[in-house]
């Protein structure tokens, strides 16, 4: 696992593509925060929403692309098959590759958040727990999407396929999903509204992170009177623990599937 992790980490961190993204992310987050960072407080505001949205839009995209393209590339070039012939268990390989990608992407995210915080400091902004919370949840979001990406990369037969699937999944989760939920909402009877929202949060890691951030900041008054009871529950400890549990499921399931696929590959190798 250690070897595979180091290998993946080294390959990804040396990629010019990821470096460019690190710089882009740092510039974007610094700009967003510097242009709207006048007001920071323990509650969810437009500037926090702007930074959160930046993370919610970019982080899944980059995690999916970076993760899946690297693995699909390895596969396409035959290096993965080569590694599989080594005396290394599929499980160590899967988790090693995953850990390596995580370290690389976390580094990029930390760089972005670090730059944004320093920029905000120089423009006279104040500390808010939001930064830490948002950073931690972005790290979690990265981890979830890297797990999904790993699975996509392993299943896809080449880079192009991995790219297509990744882009589709990104667009589905980030852009289409909410409109689909809204469309469903107009179809289902009123008493199912909360159930539908609950399900929509569980079924989409992007939604999960968005709602988690808002509830963790105790700002779920934002969700309006209809969801008052639900919001109170989501802000409570059991609600927050449920978020943790769902996030874990979102990480473990794709990893498990990837591991299954890897085993199959090993058998065929």
């Amino acid at each position, binding site marked *: 696992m250690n070897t595979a992790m180091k290998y993946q980490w080294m390959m990804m961190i040396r990629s010019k593509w990821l470096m460019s993204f690190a710089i882009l992310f740092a510039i974007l987050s610094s700009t967003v925060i510097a242009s709207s960072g006048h007001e920071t407080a323990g*509650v969810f*505001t437009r500037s926090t929403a702007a930074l959160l949205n930046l993370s919610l839009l970019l982080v899944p995209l980059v995690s999916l692309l970076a993760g899946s393209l690297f693995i699909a590339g390895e596969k396409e070039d035959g290096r993965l098959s080569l590694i599989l012939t080594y005396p290394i268990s599929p499980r160590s390989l899967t988790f090693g590759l995953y850990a390596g990608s995580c370290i690389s992407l976390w*580094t990029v995210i930390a760089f972005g958040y670090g730059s944004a915080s320093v920029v905000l*400091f120089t423009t006279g902004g104040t500390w808010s727990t939001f930064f830490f919370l948002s950073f931690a949840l972005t790290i979690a979001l990265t981890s979830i999407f890297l797990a999904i990406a790993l699975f996509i990369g392993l299943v896809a037969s080449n880079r192009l396929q991995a790219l297509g699937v990744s882009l589709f999944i990104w667009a589905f989760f980030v852009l289409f999903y909410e409109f689909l939920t809204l469309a469903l909402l107009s179809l289902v009877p009123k008493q199912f509204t909360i159930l539908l929202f609950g399900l929509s949060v569980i079924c989409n890691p992007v939604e999960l992170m*968005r709602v988690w951030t808002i509830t963790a900041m105790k700002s779920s008054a934002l969700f309006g009177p209809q969801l008052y009871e639900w919001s109170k529950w989501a802000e409570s400890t059991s609600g927050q623990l449920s978020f943790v549990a769902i996030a874990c499921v979102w990480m473990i399931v794709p990893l498990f599937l990837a591991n299954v696929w890897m085993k199959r590959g090993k058998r065929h190798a």
Partner: protein
Amino acid sequence: MRSLFFWLILIVTLLFTKNVYGQTVEGHKQLQQAIDEAHAGDVLVVKRGVYEGPIIIRKPIHLIAEPGAVVDGDGSEYVITIRAPHVYIEGLTIHRSAYGKGAGVLIKESSHVTLKNVHIEDAHYGVYVEKGMNINIVNNIIRGRDVHFAQRGNGIHLLKTKHVVVSQNDISRVQDGLYLDGAEHTTIEKNKVTNARYAIHFMYAEDGIAKENVLTENINGIMMMMSKRFTIEQNTIAKQLDYRGYGALIYDSEHVVMHNNTLLYNSTALSLQNGRHCTIKANEFIGNYRALHSLYENDNTIVVENKFLGNMEDALIQGAPIAFDDGEKGNYWDTYQFYDLNDDGIGDAPHRIRSMYSRLLRQWPSVQFYFQSPALALLDTTESFFTQAQAQGEDRFPLMEIDFNKNETNERSWRLLLFGSILLVSSLFMFVYGRRMKYEKNG
């Protein structure tokens, strides 16, 4: 020399007169008895100790309490009742009125009464003033009971009063912090109210000023109903985050001037409902879910020179349109996207207040769940570029610049720098380490 000596003796005598006349009340002597025995105008010094309530004061008297002097109501309706003019109470701790009724202090049909540095705890109402005139309620601490709002009394309740000054009080755990019912010429300044249903509740109140109060974490900060001629200035109204709540709600009131207030992080900062001749000027609306809400008709109401910064939604106008400029100046909107080429400080195009989001919301209230979510934010932005959504209102003279007349110090947050530096240094280390790392075959 002799006359000088005479004067000296006279001065010393006068200086000590107060104490000679001022009786000292101690634990063994009941406070009520001491008050009954005192003459009008006497000063009673109340020593440390617990005194049995209820106490009724029917003559002009001064009660000066030493620290630790407590009047215990033991569940009686009113712990202290004042039914005489020129009563002065200072430094007393008052606790335990009846449950569900009564008050720490009842001031009834009196004038020139002062309550100062009084600590009221575990009472239904804090101070209940009925038909009082020239009452001063200054620098008191009032704590209600930790029960549901419906079971609490008000902090300071003014019923049919005139010329009352409520200043520098610290009130929490009550139903309404201050309740003005038919109160005239009231001055409310520098009070702090938190954990109340309404921090300040005006009902048929006329003429007065609410200044420099700090109202935080209540359901409503200011609730003004059927009131007239009030000035609300330089208050900080923050974190009224309950979904039912408002920073300030002005309902069916007239000639209300709200200026230079800071409305921060409220679910709805200000709602105008049937206001007449109201002026909303030079306030700061920052980081609210919705900054301004207008319902029904608000005749001759003007919203001008305010700063709208970082609000999720700037305005929701559900009734008749209201004026966002006075013909020369409008407001500062951080969502305004246009230029000021002639450099006169006024944007060259009117600011149209609109949002796709609020239109959707009216159709499907559940959309609120997606407030500023990536997809809806994207839709909102796209829509603002390509279509002409119906504007909620129009500011013809949007201000381009704002000067923050901030009273808050712009201190630098070292925690922010520390957080940023740790992240930057560790990420750079990981970059460098990762790039220099050598891959050894087979581990």
